[in-house]
Protein backbone atom coordinates (compact mmCIF):
# COMPACT_ATOMS: atom_id res chain seq x y z
CA UNK A 1 0.00 0.00 0.00
CA UNK A 2 1.32 3.40 -0.96
CA UNK A 3 1.23 6.51 1.15
CA UNK A 4 -1.48 8.86 0.01
CA UNK A 5 -1.38 11.53 2.67
CA UNK A 6 1.69 12.38 4.60
CA UNK A 7 2.01 14.98 7.32
CA UNK A 8 5.50 16.06 8.29
CA UNK A 9 6.23 17.99 11.45
CA UNK A 10 3.00 19.88 11.32
CA UNK A 11 2.79 22.69 13.86
CA UNK A 12 -0.46 24.62 14.27
CA UNK A 13 -1.00 27.29 16.86
CA UNK A 14 -4.01 29.32 17.83
CA UNK A 15 -3.68 32.35 20.04
CA UNK A 16 -0.04 31.55 20.71
CA UNK A 17 -0.72 28.04 21.95
CA UNK A 18 0.32 25.07 19.89
CA UNK A 19 -2.60 22.82 19.11
CA UNK A 20 -0.46 20.47 17.07
CA UNK A 21 3.21 20.09 18.07
CA UNK A 22 5.16 18.80 15.13
CA UNK A 23 2.80 16.03 14.20
CA UNK A 24 4.00 13.54 11.61
CA UNK A 25 1.89 10.82 10.13
CA UNK A 26 1.58 8.68 7.03
CA UNK A 27 -1.75 7.49 5.78
CA UNK A 28 -1.89 4.62 3.35
CA UNK A 29 -4.12 4.42 0.36
CA UNK A 30 -7.54 2.78 0.65
CA UNK A 31 -7.33 2.44 4.39
CA UNK A 32 -9.94 3.35 6.96
CA UNK A 33 -7.97 5.50 9.39
CA UNK A 34 -9.48 6.82 12.59
CA UNK A 35 -8.21 9.68 14.73
CA UNK A 36 -9.24 8.99 18.29
CA UNK A 37 -8.70 11.19 21.28
CA UNK A 38 -10.35 13.24 23.93
CA UNK A 39 -12.09 16.51 23.16
CA UNK A 40 -9.70 19.31 22.27
CA UNK A 41 -6.75 17.08 21.46
CA UNK A 42 -6.46 18.41 17.92
CA UNK A 43 -8.27 15.81 15.83
CA UNK A 44 -10.39 18.31 13.96
CA UNK A 45 -7.42 20.55 13.49
CA UNK A 46 -5.42 17.73 11.90
CA UNK A 47 -8.31 17.01 9.58
CA UNK A 48 -8.57 20.67 8.64
CA UNK A 49 -4.88 20.75 7.86
CA UNK A 50 -5.39 17.89 5.43
CA UNK A 51 -8.49 19.54 3.99
CA UNK A 52 -6.67 22.84 3.57
CA UNK A 53 -8.77 24.92 5.91
CA UNK A 54 -5.94 25.49 8.35
CA UNK A 55 -2.47 26.55 7.30
CA UNK A 56 0.18 24.94 9.48
CA UNK A 57 2.68 27.45 10.82
CA UNK A 58 5.42 25.01 9.95
CA UNK A 59 5.64 21.55 8.43
CA UNK A 60 4.41 20.12 5.16
CA UNK A 61 1.45 18.21 3.85
CA UNK A 62 2.06 15.76 1.03
CA UNK A 63 -0.60 14.25 -1.10
CA UNK A 64 0.39 11.40 -3.32
CA UNK A 65 4.00 12.53 -2.98
CA UNK A 66 3.32 16.15 -3.90
CA UNK A 67 3.62 19.03 -1.48
CA UNK A 68 0.16 20.59 -1.17
CA UNK A 69 0.80 22.64 1.93
CA UNK A 70 -0.13 25.87 0.18
CA UNK A 71 -2.90 24.57 -2.07
CA UNK A 72 -6.32 26.07 -1.26
CA UNK A 73 -9.09 23.63 -0.29
CA UNK A 74 -10.91 23.82 -3.59
CA UNK A 75 -7.91 22.53 -5.46
CA UNK A 76 -7.36 19.43 -3.31
CA UNK A 77 -8.54 15.97 -4.27
CA UNK A 78 -9.98 15.59 -0.84
CA UNK A 79 -13.56 15.96 0.32
CA UNK A 80 -14.88 16.50 3.77
CA UNK A 81 -17.99 15.42 5.63
CA UNK A 82 -18.44 18.07 8.28
CA UNK A 83 -19.39 17.43 11.87
CA UNK A 84 -22.88 18.84 11.58
CA UNK A 85 -23.11 17.94 7.90
CA UNK A 86 -23.09 21.56 6.65
CA UNK A 87 -25.62 20.72 3.97
CA UNK A 88 -26.78 23.64 1.88
CA UNK A 89 -30.24 24.38 3.17
CA UNK A 90 -31.31 26.24 0.07
CA UNK A 91 -30.75 23.23 -2.15
CA UNK A 92 -32.60 19.96 -2.21
CA UNK A 93 -30.95 16.59 -1.82
CA UNK A 94 -30.21 16.20 -5.50
CA UNK A 95 -28.71 19.65 -5.86
CA UNK A 96 -26.64 19.23 -2.74
CA UNK A 97 -25.07 16.12 -4.12
CA UNK A 98 -24.69 17.60 -7.59
CA UNK A 99 -23.01 20.73 -6.23
CA UNK A 100 -19.41 19.66 -6.73
CA UNK A 101 -20.07 18.15 -10.15
CA UNK A 102 -21.78 21.28 -11.43
CA UNK A 103 -18.70 23.27 -10.55
CA UNK A 104 -16.72 20.99 -12.81
CA UNK A 105 -19.06 21.98 -15.66
CA UNK A 106 -19.89 18.40 -16.22
CA UNK A 107 -22.48 17.30 -18.70
CA UNK A 108 -25.99 17.42 -17.17
CA UNK A 109 -26.68 13.84 -18.14
CA UNK A 110 -23.53 12.57 -16.55
CA UNK A 111 -24.24 14.56 -13.42
CA UNK A 112 -27.65 13.01 -13.24
CA UNK A 113 -26.43 9.48 -13.57
CA UNK A 114 -23.64 9.95 -11.06
CA UNK A 115 -25.84 11.64 -8.48
CA UNK A 116 -28.55 9.04 -8.76
CA UNK A 117 -26.01 6.27 -8.54
CA UNK A 118 -24.48 7.81 -5.45
CA UNK A 119 -27.85 8.33 -3.79
CA UNK A 120 -28.57 4.71 -4.39
CA UNK A 121 -25.29 3.73 -2.83
CA UNK A 122 -26.11 5.63 0.36
CA UNK A 123 -29.66 4.30 0.33
CA UNK A 124 -31.44 7.54 -0.47
CA UNK A 125 -33.01 6.59 -3.76
CA UNK A 126 -36.23 8.51 -4.23
CA UNK A 127 -35.21 11.30 -1.90
CA UNK A 128 -33.82 13.51 -4.66
CA UNK A 129 -36.37 16.29 -4.48
CA UNK A 130 -36.61 16.42 -0.70
CA UNK A 131 -35.51 19.42 1.30
CA UNK A 132 -32.46 18.61 3.36
CA UNK A 133 -33.87 20.37 6.40
CA UNK A 134 -36.71 17.88 6.73
CA UNK A 135 -34.48 14.84 6.73
CA UNK A 136 -33.65 12.89 9.85
CA UNK A 137 -30.13 13.06 11.24
CA UNK A 138 -29.10 9.78 9.68
CA UNK A 139 -30.44 10.78 6.30
CA UNK A 140 -28.70 14.14 6.39
CA UNK A 141 -25.59 12.29 7.30
CA UNK A 142 -25.86 10.16 4.23
CA UNK A 143 -26.50 13.13 1.98
CA UNK A 144 -23.33 14.71 3.30
CA UNK A 145 -21.41 11.56 2.55
CA UNK A 146 -22.89 11.26 -0.91
CA UNK A 147 -22.04 14.89 -1.58
CA UNK A 148 -18.43 14.18 -0.79
CA UNK A 149 -18.16 10.79 -2.49
CA UNK A 150 -19.81 11.77 -5.74
CA UNK A 151 -16.73 13.80 -6.63
CA UNK A 152 -14.65 10.65 -6.49
CA UNK A 153 -12.14 12.12 -4.08
CA UNK A 154 -9.02 10.14 -3.36
CA UNK A 155 -9.56 10.72 0.32
CA UNK A 156 -12.73 11.38 2.26
CA UNK A 157 -12.39 13.17 5.58
CA UNK A 158 -15.13 12.62 8.13
CA UNK A 159 -15.30 14.71 11.30
CA UNK A 160 -17.37 12.95 13.95
CA UNK A 161 -20.09 12.32 11.43
CA UNK A 162 -22.12 10.25 13.88
CA UNK A 163 -21.74 12.52 16.88
CA UNK A 164 -25.27 13.84 16.76
CA UNK A 165 -27.07 10.56 16.19
CA UNK A 166 -28.62 8.38 18.84
CA UNK A 167 -27.13 5.10 19.85
CA UNK A 168 -29.14 2.78 17.66
CA UNK A 169 -28.78 4.82 14.50
CA UNK A 170 -25.13 5.27 15.29
CA UNK A 171 -24.48 1.57 15.31
CA UNK A 172 -26.28 1.11 12.03
CA UNK A 173 -24.40 3.94 10.39
CA UNK A 174 -21.07 2.61 11.59
CA UNK A 175 -21.61 -0.58 9.66
CA UNK A 176 -22.87 1.30 6.66
CA UNK A 177 -19.86 3.61 6.53
CA UNK A 178 -17.48 0.71 6.69
CA UNK A 179 -19.37 -1.00 3.90
CA UNK A 180 -19.27 2.20 1.81
CA UNK A 181 -15.56 2.61 2.23
CA UNK A 182 -15.01 -0.89 1.03
CA UNK A 183 -17.40 -0.48 -1.86
CA UNK A 184 -15.88 2.79 -3.08
CA UNK A 185 -12.39 1.55 -2.41
CA UNK A 186 -10.96 4.90 -1.27
CA UNK A 187 -9.26 6.22 1.82
CA UNK A 188 -11.42 7.35 4.72
CA UNK A 189 -9.97 9.50 7.46
CA UNK A 190 -12.37 9.48 10.31
CA UNK A 191 -12.46 11.46 13.53
CA UNK A 192 -14.17 10.33 16.68
CA UNK A 193 -13.82 10.42 20.41
CA UNK A 194 -15.78 7.24 20.89
CA UNK A 195 -13.37 4.37 21.30
CA UNK A 196 -15.96 1.72 20.50
CA UNK A 197 -16.63 3.38 17.18
CA UNK A 198 -12.93 3.53 16.42
CA UNK A 199 -12.46 -0.15 17.15
CA UNK A 200 -15.50 -1.22 15.18
CA UNK A 201 -14.68 0.54 11.94
CA UNK A 202 -11.00 1.16 11.46
CA UNK A 203 -8.13 -0.49 9.77
CA UNK A 204 -5.77 1.83 11.59
CA UNK A 205 -6.41 3.83 14.72
CA UNK A 206 -4.38 6.93 15.56
CA UNK A 207 -4.68 7.77 19.23
CA UNK A 208 -4.00 11.43 19.98
CA UNK A 209 -3.60 13.50 23.08
CA UNK A 210 -2.76 17.20 23.42
CA UNK A 211 -1.69 17.51 19.81
CA UNK A 212 0.63 14.50 19.91
CA UNK A 213 0.21 11.03 18.56
CA UNK A 214 0.19 8.43 21.31
CA UNK A 215 -0.08 5.26 19.30
CA UNK A 216 -0.82 4.12 15.78
CA UNK A 217 -1.97 0.62 15.10
CA UNK A 218 -4.76 -1.78 14.27
CA UNK A 219 -7.72 -1.87 16.68
CA UNK A 220 -6.55 -5.17 18.12
CA UNK A 221 -3.01 -3.87 18.71
CA UNK A 222 -4.30 -0.78 20.34
CA UNK A 223 -6.72 -2.62 22.58
CA UNK A 224 -4.49 -5.43 23.58
CA UNK A 225 -1.09 -3.77 23.50
CA UNK A 226 -1.59 -0.14 24.59
CA UNK A 227 1.74 1.63 24.62
CA UNK A 228 1.00 3.71 27.64
CA UNK A 229 -1.50 4.22 30.40
CA UNK A 230 -3.32 6.93 28.51
CA UNK A 231 -4.04 4.67 25.58
CA UNK A 232 -4.99 1.84 27.87
CA UNK A 233 -7.45 3.89 29.85
CA UNK A 234 -8.84 5.68 26.84
CA UNK A 235 -9.52 2.46 24.93
CA UNK A 236 -11.99 0.64 27.11
CA UNK A 237 -12.01 0.35 30.86
CA UNK A 238 -8.83 -0.84 32.49
CA UNK A 239 -7.24 -1.53 35.80
CA UNK A 240 -3.87 0.18 35.72
CA UNK A 241 -1.56 -0.62 38.63
CA UNK A 242 2.02 0.24 39.41
CA UNK A 243 4.25 -2.76 39.63
CA UNK A 244 7.85 -3.94 39.60
CA UNK A 245 9.32 -6.25 37.00
CA UNK A 246 11.16 -8.69 39.20
CA UNK A 247 12.65 -10.60 36.29
CA UNK A 248 11.59 -11.81 32.85
CA UNK A 249 8.11 -13.38 32.97
CA UNK A 250 7.59 -12.33 36.57
CA UNK A 251 6.01 -9.13 37.81
CA UNK A 252 5.03 -7.98 41.28
CA UNK A 253 1.97 -5.80 41.87
CA UNK A 254 -0.77 -5.42 44.44
CA UNK A 255 1.48 -7.15 46.91
CA UNK A 256 1.75 -10.37 44.96
CA UNK A 257 3.95 -12.01 42.33
CA UNK A 258 2.42 -12.96 39.00
CA UNK A 259 3.73 -14.83 36.01
CA UNK A 260 3.40 -12.94 32.80
CA UNK A 261 4.46 -13.23 29.16
CA UNK A 262 6.60 -10.10 28.95
CA UNK A 263 10.36 -9.94 29.10
CA UNK A 264 13.24 -7.68 28.22
CA UNK A 265 12.70 -5.20 31.04
CA UNK A 266 15.51 -4.19 33.31
CA UNK A 267 15.85 -5.92 36.64
CA UNK A 268 13.40 -4.45 39.16
CA UNK A 269 12.24 -1.91 36.62
CA UNK A 270 9.21 0.13 37.70
CA UNK A 271 6.36 -0.69 35.34
CA UNK A 272 2.64 -0.25 34.96
CA UNK A 273 0.40 -3.24 34.64
CA UNK A 274 -2.80 -3.13 32.63
CA UNK A 275 -5.54 -5.66 33.25
CA UNK A 276 -8.89 -5.49 31.48
CA UNK A 277 -11.87 -5.87 33.81
CA UNK A 278 -13.24 -8.83 31.90
CA UNK A 279 -9.90 -10.65 32.22
CA UNK A 280 -10.12 -11.00 35.98
CA UNK A 281 -11.65 -14.26 37.13
CA UNK A 282 -13.72 -14.25 40.28
CA UNK A 283 -13.12 -17.27 42.49
CA UNK A 284 -13.83 -18.17 46.12
CA UNK A 285 -11.66 -16.08 48.42
CA UNK A 286 -9.29 -18.83 49.38
CA UNK A 287 -8.50 -19.75 45.79
CA UNK A 288 -7.72 -16.20 44.66
CA UNK A 289 -4.30 -14.79 43.91
CA UNK A 290 -5.70 -11.62 45.41
CA UNK A 291 -8.64 -11.14 47.73
CA UNK A 292 -10.86 -8.09 47.98
CA UNK A 293 -14.16 -6.86 49.28
CA UNK A 294 -16.99 -6.13 46.81
CA UNK A 295 -18.02 -2.47 47.14
CA UNK A 296 -20.62 -2.09 44.46
CA UNK A 297 -22.36 -4.26 41.91
CA UNK A 298 -24.02 -2.82 38.85
CA UNK A 299 -26.03 -4.88 36.43
CA UNK A 300 -25.03 -4.07 32.87
CA UNK A 301 -27.06 -6.60 30.99
CA UNK A 302 -24.34 -8.68 29.43
CA UNK A 303 -22.38 -8.74 32.66
CA UNK A 304 -22.15 -7.31 36.15
CA UNK A 305 -19.70 -4.59 36.86
CA UNK A 306 -18.15 -4.95 40.31
CA UNK A 307 -15.90 -2.57 42.14
CA UNK A 308 -13.70 -4.51 44.48
CA UNK A 309 -11.40 -3.01 47.04
CA UNK A 310 -8.12 -4.71 47.58
CA UNK A 311 -5.32 -3.11 49.61
CA UNK A 312 -6.48 0.42 48.86
CA UNK A 313 -6.88 -0.08 45.13
CA UNK A 314 -10.33 -0.27 43.56
CA UNK A 315 -10.51 -2.98 40.92
CA UNK A 316 -13.14 -2.99 38.23
CA UNK A 317 -14.24 -6.49 37.37
CA UNK A 318 -16.72 -7.58 34.73
CA UNK A 319 -18.27 -10.90 35.46
CA UNK A 320 -21.38 -12.73 34.41
CA UNK A 321 -21.89 -13.86 38.01
CA UNK A 322 -22.76 -11.26 40.60
CA UNK A 323 -21.30 -11.35 44.09
CA UNK A 324 -23.10 -9.63 46.91
CA UNK A 325 -21.75 -6.27 48.03
CA UNK A 326 -19.60 -6.71 51.11
CA UNK A 327 -18.60 -10.23 50.17
CA UNK A 328 -14.95 -11.26 50.24
CA UNK A 329 -13.92 -12.64 46.90
CA UNK A 330 -10.79 -13.99 45.29
CA UNK A 331 -9.41 -12.79 41.98
CA UNK A 332 -7.28 -14.74 39.51
CA UNK A 333 -5.39 -13.25 36.60
CA UNK A 334 -3.85 -15.44 33.93
CA UNK A 335 -0.39 -14.66 32.53
CA UNK A 336 -1.82 -13.82 29.10
CA UNK A 337 -4.03 -11.14 30.58
CA UNK A 338 -1.27 -9.18 32.19
CA UNK A 339 0.08 -6.42 30.02
CA UNK A 340 3.21 -4.61 31.10
CA UNK A 341 4.19 -1.04 30.13
CA UNK A 342 7.11 1.12 31.17
CA UNK A 343 5.87 3.60 33.71
CA UNK A 344 5.08 7.09 32.43
CA UNK A 345 3.93 10.21 34.14
CA UNK A 346 0.22 11.11 34.28
Amino acid at each position, binding site marked *: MSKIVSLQNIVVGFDGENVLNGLSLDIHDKEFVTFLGPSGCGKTTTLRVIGGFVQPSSGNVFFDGQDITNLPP*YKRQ*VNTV*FQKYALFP*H*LNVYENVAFGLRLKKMDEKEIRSRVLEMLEVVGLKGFERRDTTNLSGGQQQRVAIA*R*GLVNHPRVLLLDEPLGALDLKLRKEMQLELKRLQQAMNITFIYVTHDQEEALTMSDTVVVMKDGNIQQIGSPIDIYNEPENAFVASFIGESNIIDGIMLRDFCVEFAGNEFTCVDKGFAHNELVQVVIRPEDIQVVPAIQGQLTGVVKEVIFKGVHYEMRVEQAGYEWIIHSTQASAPGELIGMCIGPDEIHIMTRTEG
Partner: protein
Amino acid sequence: MKKQHLAALQKVYLCLIFSFLYVPIAVMMVFSFNESKSRTLFTGFTLKWYQSLLHNEMILEALWLSLVVAFLAATVATILGVMASIGISGMKKRTQGVINTVSYLPVVNPEIITGVSLMMLFVVYVNVAHWLNSNPSVPGFLKFLPENIFGFGTLLIAHITFCVPYVIFNVAPKLRRMDVRMYEAALDLGCNPRQAFFKVVLPELMPAILSAFLISLTYSIDDFIISYFSCGTLQTLPIAIYSMTRKKVSPEINALSTIMFVAILCIILVSNALESRSYRKKRIKE
Protein backbone atom coordinates in the same frame (compact mmCIF):
# COMPACT_ATOMS: atom_id res chain seq x y z
CA MET B 1 -61.43 23.32 32.76
CA LYS B 2 -59.41 26.36 33.63
CA LYS B 3 -57.22 25.89 30.62
CA GLN B 4 -60.23 26.01 28.33
CA HIS B 5 -61.33 29.29 29.86
CA LEU B 6 -57.88 30.66 29.28
CA ALA B 7 -57.90 29.53 25.69
CA ALA B 8 -61.27 31.18 25.10
CA LEU B 9 -60.10 34.37 26.76
CA GLN B 10 -57.04 34.34 24.57
CA LYS B 11 -59.16 34.04 21.44
CA VAL B 12 -61.42 36.88 22.47
CA TYR B 13 -58.46 39.06 23.23
CA LEU B 14 -56.77 38.38 19.91
CA CYS B 15 -60.03 39.11 18.13
CA LEU B 16 -60.33 42.44 19.90
CA ILE B 17 -56.82 43.50 19.07
CA PHE B 18 -57.10 42.51 15.46
CA SER B 19 -60.39 44.27 15.05
CA PHE B 20 -58.78 47.34 16.58
CA LEU B 21 -56.10 47.08 13.92
CA TYR B 22 -58.52 46.56 11.09
CA VAL B 23 -61.53 48.73 11.87
CA PRO B 24 -60.09 51.90 10.32
CA ILE B 25 -59.04 49.98 7.26
CA ALA B 26 -62.48 48.49 6.94
CA VAL B 27 -63.99 51.97 7.21
CA MET B 28 -61.70 53.16 4.48
CA MET B 29 -62.63 50.28 2.23
CA VAL B 30 -66.36 50.55 2.82
CA PHE B 31 -66.42 54.25 2.09
CA SER B 32 -64.55 53.77 -1.15
CA PHE B 33 -67.87 52.47 -2.43
CA ASN B 34 -69.87 55.33 -1.01
CA GLU B 35 -72.08 57.23 -3.39
CA SER B 36 -71.53 60.60 -1.72
CA LYS B 37 -68.34 62.16 -0.55
CA SER B 38 -69.37 61.86 3.08
CA ARG B 39 -66.96 60.02 5.29
CA THR B 40 -69.46 59.04 7.91
CA LEU B 41 -72.74 58.35 6.17
CA PHE B 42 -73.07 55.56 3.69
CA THR B 43 -75.54 56.79 1.14
CA GLY B 44 -75.35 54.17 -1.55
CA PHE B 45 -73.11 51.85 -3.47
CA THR B 46 -71.07 53.03 -6.40
CA LEU B 47 -67.90 52.24 -8.27
CA LYS B 48 -67.46 55.71 -9.67
CA TRP B 49 -64.49 56.54 -7.45
CA TYR B 50 -62.59 53.65 -8.94
CA GLN B 51 -63.41 54.97 -12.34
CA SER B 52 -62.37 58.50 -11.61
CA LEU B 53 -59.23 57.25 -9.92
CA LEU B 54 -58.11 56.01 -13.32
CA HIS B 55 -58.37 59.54 -14.64
CA ASN B 56 -56.81 61.37 -11.73
CA GLU B 57 -53.38 62.06 -13.05
CA MET B 58 -52.18 63.74 -9.89
CA ILE B 59 -52.77 60.65 -7.79
CA LEU B 60 -51.52 58.25 -10.41
CA GLU B 61 -48.36 60.24 -10.95
CA ALA B 62 -47.73 60.42 -7.24
CA LEU B 63 -48.33 56.69 -6.94
CA TRP B 64 -45.96 55.99 -9.79
CA LEU B 65 -43.27 58.20 -8.26
CA SER B 66 -43.71 56.53 -4.88
CA LEU B 67 -43.38 53.10 -6.41
CA VAL B 68 -40.34 53.99 -8.48
CA VAL B 69 -38.58 55.63 -5.57
CA ALA B 70 -39.46 52.79 -3.24
CA PHE B 71 -38.17 50.12 -5.59
CA LEU B 72 -35.00 51.95 -6.43
CA ALA B 73 -34.32 52.92 -2.86
CA ALA B 74 -35.02 49.45 -1.55
CA THR B 75 -32.82 47.88 -4.19
CA VAL B 76 -29.89 50.21 -3.66
CA ALA B 77 -30.29 50.08 0.11
CA THR B 78 -30.35 46.29 0.02
CA ILE B 79 -27.21 46.05 -2.08
CA LEU B 80 -25.42 48.67 -0.02
CA GLY B 81 -26.59 47.09 3.22
CA VAL B 82 -25.62 43.56 2.28
CA MET B 83 -22.19 44.68 1.18
CA ALA B 84 -21.82 46.65 4.36
CA SER B 85 -22.91 43.71 6.52
CA ILE B 86 -20.32 41.49 4.92
CA GLY B 87 -17.63 44.11 5.21
CA ILE B 88 -18.48 44.91 8.80
CA SER B 89 -18.50 41.25 9.81
CA GLY B 90 -14.80 41.14 9.05
CA MET B 91 -13.98 44.06 11.30
CA LYS B 92 -12.94 44.23 14.90
CA LYS B 93 -15.63 44.08 17.57
CA ARG B 94 -15.05 47.64 18.61
CA THR B 95 -15.25 49.05 15.08
CA GLN B 96 -18.39 47.05 14.57
CA GLY B 97 -19.87 48.60 17.67
CA VAL B 98 -19.14 52.12 16.48
CA ILE B 99 -20.59 51.49 13.04
CA ASN B 100 -23.68 49.85 14.49
CA THR B 101 -24.24 52.75 16.81
CA VAL B 102 -24.03 55.27 14.00
CA SER B 103 -26.27 53.14 11.81
CA TYR B 104 -28.71 53.11 14.65
CA LEU B 105 -29.12 56.86 14.55
CA PRO B 106 -31.56 57.09 11.65
CA VAL B 107 -33.61 54.33 13.24
CA VAL B 108 -33.92 55.86 16.66
CA ASN B 109 -33.90 59.48 15.63
CA PRO B 110 -37.27 61.03 15.15
CA GLU B 111 -38.01 61.04 11.44
CA ILE B 112 -38.39 64.75 11.46
CA ILE B 113 -34.77 65.13 12.52
CA THR B 114 -33.54 62.81 9.83
CA GLY B 115 -35.61 64.68 7.28
CA VAL B 116 -34.56 68.11 8.42
CA SER B 117 -30.90 67.23 8.78
CA LEU B 118 -30.79 65.77 5.30
CA MET B 119 -32.53 68.80 3.90
CA MET B 120 -30.00 71.00 5.61
CA LEU B 121 -27.20 68.99 4.10
CA PHE B 122 -28.67 69.48 0.65
CA VAL B 123 -29.16 73.16 1.33
CA VAL B 124 -25.57 73.51 2.44
CA TYR B 125 -24.53 71.77 -0.72
CA VAL B 126 -26.69 74.09 -2.80
CA ASN B 127 -25.11 77.08 -1.10
CA VAL B 128 -21.63 75.77 -1.70
CA ALA B 129 -22.38 75.03 -5.31
CA HIS B 130 -23.93 78.41 -5.74
CA TRP B 131 -20.95 80.12 -4.22
CA LEU B 132 -18.57 78.17 -6.41
CA ASN B 133 -20.53 78.88 -9.54
CA SER B 134 -21.04 82.56 -8.92
CA ASN B 135 -17.76 83.55 -7.35
CA PRO B 136 -15.48 84.96 -10.04
CA SER B 137 -12.29 84.09 -8.14
CA VAL B 138 -13.03 80.37 -8.35
CA PRO B 139 -11.33 78.71 -11.32
CA GLY B 140 -13.73 77.65 -14.04
CA PHE B 141 -13.17 73.92 -13.83
CA LEU B 142 -14.69 73.92 -10.35
CA LYS B 143 -17.94 75.35 -11.61
CA PHE B 144 -19.52 72.09 -12.58
CA LEU B 145 -21.68 71.41 -9.54
CA PRO B 146 -25.37 71.57 -10.34
CA GLU B 147 -27.38 73.82 -8.09
CA ASN B 148 -30.82 72.43 -8.73
CA ILE B 149 -30.50 69.14 -7.00
CA PHE B 150 -33.77 68.95 -5.11
CA GLY B 151 -36.02 66.42 -6.69
CA PHE B 152 -35.71 62.80 -7.58
CA GLY B 153 -32.06 62.52 -6.59
CA THR B 154 -32.44 63.94 -3.13
CA LEU B 155 -35.61 61.96 -2.54
CA LEU B 156 -33.80 58.78 -3.48
CA ILE B 157 -30.81 59.60 -1.31
CA ALA B 158 -33.04 60.30 1.66
CA HIS B 159 -34.94 57.07 1.23
CA ILE B 160 -31.80 55.02 0.83
CA THR B 161 -30.35 56.62 3.92
CA PHE B 162 -33.15 55.58 6.19
CA CYS B 163 -33.51 52.13 4.63
CA VAL B 164 -29.91 50.91 4.81
CA PRO B 165 -29.80 50.50 8.60
CA TYR B 166 -32.82 48.20 8.49
CA VAL B 167 -31.05 46.07 5.93
CA ILE B 168 -27.95 45.89 8.07
CA PHE B 169 -29.88 45.02 11.20
CA ASN B 170 -31.62 42.24 9.34
CA VAL B 171 -28.69 40.76 7.50
CA ALA B 172 -25.74 41.20 9.85
CA PRO B 173 -27.01 38.93 12.66
CA LYS B 174 -27.91 36.23 10.14
CA LEU B 175 -24.46 36.49 8.67
CA ARG B 176 -22.91 36.23 12.08
CA ARG B 177 -24.95 33.20 13.00
CA MET B 178 -24.37 31.51 9.69
CA ASP B 179 -22.40 28.32 9.91
CA VAL B 180 -18.85 28.90 8.68
CA ARG B 181 -18.73 25.28 7.69
CA MET B 182 -21.28 25.95 4.98
CA TYR B 183 -18.75 28.17 3.31
CA GLU B 184 -15.95 25.71 3.94
CA ALA B 185 -18.04 22.91 2.51
CA ALA B 186 -18.41 24.90 -0.68
CA LEU B 187 -14.64 25.41 -0.87
CA ASP B 188 -14.17 21.76 -0.14
CA LEU B 189 -16.40 20.81 -3.06
CA GLY B 190 -14.37 22.92 -5.45
CA CYS B 191 -15.72 26.46 -5.26
CA ASN B 192 -13.27 29.27 -5.20
CA PRO B 193 -14.10 31.90 -2.57
CA ARG B 194 -16.06 34.01 -5.03
CA GLN B 195 -18.17 31.11 -6.25
CA ALA B 196 -18.68 30.00 -2.68
CA PHE B 197 -20.09 33.40 -1.85
CA PHE B 198 -22.54 33.50 -4.70
CA LYS B 199 -23.52 29.86 -4.60
CA VAL B 200 -23.79 29.29 -0.89
CA VAL B 201 -23.49 32.35 1.31
CA LEU B 202 -25.80 34.57 -0.68
CA PRO B 203 -28.62 32.04 -1.08
CA GLU B 204 -28.29 31.32 2.61
CA LEU B 205 -28.75 35.00 3.40
CA MET B 206 -31.54 35.34 0.88
CA PRO B 207 -34.49 35.17 3.28
CA ALA B 208 -32.97 37.88 5.42
CA ILE B 209 -32.13 39.96 2.38
CA LEU B 210 -35.62 39.53 1.05
CA SER B 211 -37.25 40.58 4.26
CA ALA B 212 -34.88 43.52 4.48
CA PHE B 213 -35.93 44.49 0.98
CA LEU B 214 -39.58 44.24 1.90
CA ILE B 215 -39.09 46.30 5.01
CA SER B 216 -37.30 48.96 3.04
CA LEU B 217 -40.09 48.94 0.51
CA THR B 218 -42.73 49.33 3.19
CA TYR B 219 -40.99 52.16 4.94
CA SER B 220 -40.19 53.91 1.72
CA ILE B 221 -43.71 53.77 0.33
CA ASP B 222 -45.20 54.97 3.58
CA ASP B 223 -42.68 57.63 4.39
CA PHE B 224 -44.05 61.11 4.52
CA ILE B 225 -41.96 63.32 6.75
CA ILE B 226 -38.52 62.65 5.35
CA SER B 227 -39.78 62.85 1.79
CA TYR B 228 -41.55 66.09 2.56
CA PHE B 229 -38.27 67.77 3.33
CA SER B 230 -36.30 66.42 0.43
CA CYS B 231 -38.71 66.03 -2.46
CA GLY B 232 -38.21 69.40 -4.13
CA THR B 233 -41.06 70.00 -6.52
CA LEU B 234 -42.07 66.37 -6.68
CA GLN B 235 -45.00 64.75 -4.95
CA THR B 236 -44.97 61.25 -3.58
CA LEU B 237 -48.21 59.52 -2.75
CA PRO B 238 -48.09 60.28 0.99
CA ILE B 239 -47.40 63.93 0.22
CA ALA B 240 -50.35 64.04 -2.15
CA ILE B 241 -52.49 62.38 0.46
CA TYR B 242 -51.28 64.77 3.11
CA SER B 243 -52.27 67.76 1.05
CA MET B 244 -55.68 66.13 0.71
CA THR B 245 -56.16 65.29 4.35
CA ARG B 246 -55.97 68.97 5.00
CA LYS B 247 -59.05 69.47 2.89
CA LYS B 248 -61.11 66.48 2.23
CA VAL B 249 -59.75 63.18 1.18
CA SER B 250 -61.21 62.30 -2.13
CA PRO B 251 -62.86 58.87 -2.02
CA GLU B 252 -60.58 58.10 -4.92
CA ILE B 253 -57.80 57.72 -2.39
CA ASN B 254 -59.92 55.25 -0.46
CA ALA B 255 -60.39 53.40 -3.69
CA LEU B 256 -56.65 53.38 -4.29
CA SER B 257 -55.97 52.10 -0.80
CA THR B 258 -58.57 49.41 -1.20
CA ILE B 259 -56.93 48.28 -4.39
CA MET B 260 -53.52 48.30 -2.78
CA PHE B 261 -54.77 46.42 0.26
CA VAL B 262 -56.42 43.77 -1.84
CA ALA B 263 -53.35 43.47 -4.02
CA ILE B 264 -51.04 42.99 -1.07
CA LEU B 265 -53.42 40.57 0.56
CA CYS B 266 -53.53 38.57 -2.64
CA ILE B 267 -49.77 38.49 -2.94
CA ILE B 268 -49.47 37.29 0.62
CA LEU B 269 -52.20 34.70 0.30
CA VAL B 270 -50.89 33.35 -2.97
CA SER B 271 -47.33 33.12 -1.74
CA ASN B 272 -48.54 31.44 1.42
CA ALA B 273 -50.67 29.03 -0.50
CA LEU B 274 -47.84 28.18 -2.84
CA GLU B 275 -45.53 27.63 0.05
CA SER B 276 -47.91 25.42 1.95
CA ARG B 277 -48.73 23.49 -1.18
CA SER B 278 -45.12 22.74 -1.93
CA TYR B 279 -44.77 21.92 1.73
CA ARG B 280 -47.68 19.54 1.58
CA LYS B 281 -46.32 18.01 -1.58
CA LYS B 282 -43.13 17.31 0.22
CA ARG B 283 -45.08 15.80 3.05
CA ILE B 284 -46.98 13.52 0.76
CA LYS B 285 -43.82 12.28 -0.83
CA GLU B 286 -42.34 11.30 2.48
